[in-house]
């Protein structure tokens, strides 16, 4: 399941989405707002998405992961809006029969999300702000 939401991400709810009696392994990756970027203190992050395309690109990534690994259930949840330190920006959950597949699929999904999904994050510092990756 693919979700793009302004609401806080609920890990327990996400877990339920990916439960399966055939699953022996679940890997859950959380991208979290941390309090600094290259030692510059971060106040908060602001995420913006091109919603329709963000969802379809995340779906493509999930479909591609499905062809590469025997995935039983998955969930991809991406947050948008203003996020405070410690909040979850993205959750990837993958359930498989065996653990190597869960780890590899989960990592593939987050790595690819960061490359192709039209979501942008602005770091707001105490003294300024910056769209991540925007400048050379």
């Amino acid at each position, binding site marked *: 399941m693919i979700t793009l939401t302004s609401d806080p991400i609920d890990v327990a709810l996400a877990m339920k989405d990916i439960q399966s009696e055939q699953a022996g392994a679940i890997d859950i990756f959380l991208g979290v707002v941390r309090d600094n970027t290259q030692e510059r203190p971060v106040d908060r992050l602001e995420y913006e998405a091109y919603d*329709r395309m963000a969802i379809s690109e995340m779906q493509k990534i999930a479909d591609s992961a499905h062809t590469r690994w025997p995935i039983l259930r998955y969930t991809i949840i991406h947050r948008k809006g203003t996020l405070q330190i410690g909040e979850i920006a993205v959750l990837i959950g993958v359930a498989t029969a065996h653990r190597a597949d869960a780890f590899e699929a989960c990592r593939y999904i*987050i790595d690819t999300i960061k490359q192709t999904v039209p979501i*942008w994050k602005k770091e707001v510092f105490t003294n300024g702000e910056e*769209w991540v990756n*925007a*400048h050379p």
Partner: protein
Amino acid sequence: MNSSVSVLLFGITRDLTGQSTIPVSLNEGANVGDLLAQLHQSYPALTGIRSLLVAVNGEYAETDLTLTSNDEIALIPPVSGG
């Protein structure tokens, strides 16, 4: 024959132009490359962005894709999700 399209802007491109959509007048048969050239001319600040892709109807588009007035067009600056 000219046609007019709206270009959706996000993130750094919206901040640089101060607008979330830009109306662009295109010549008949204009493609994605033409659109980018025209935008760069009108908004020189866009040149400062590390890379700028174009999505047409929700899909990344090559520069030789011909645009029509019904297309949903978006500028995609470097993504930073996750």
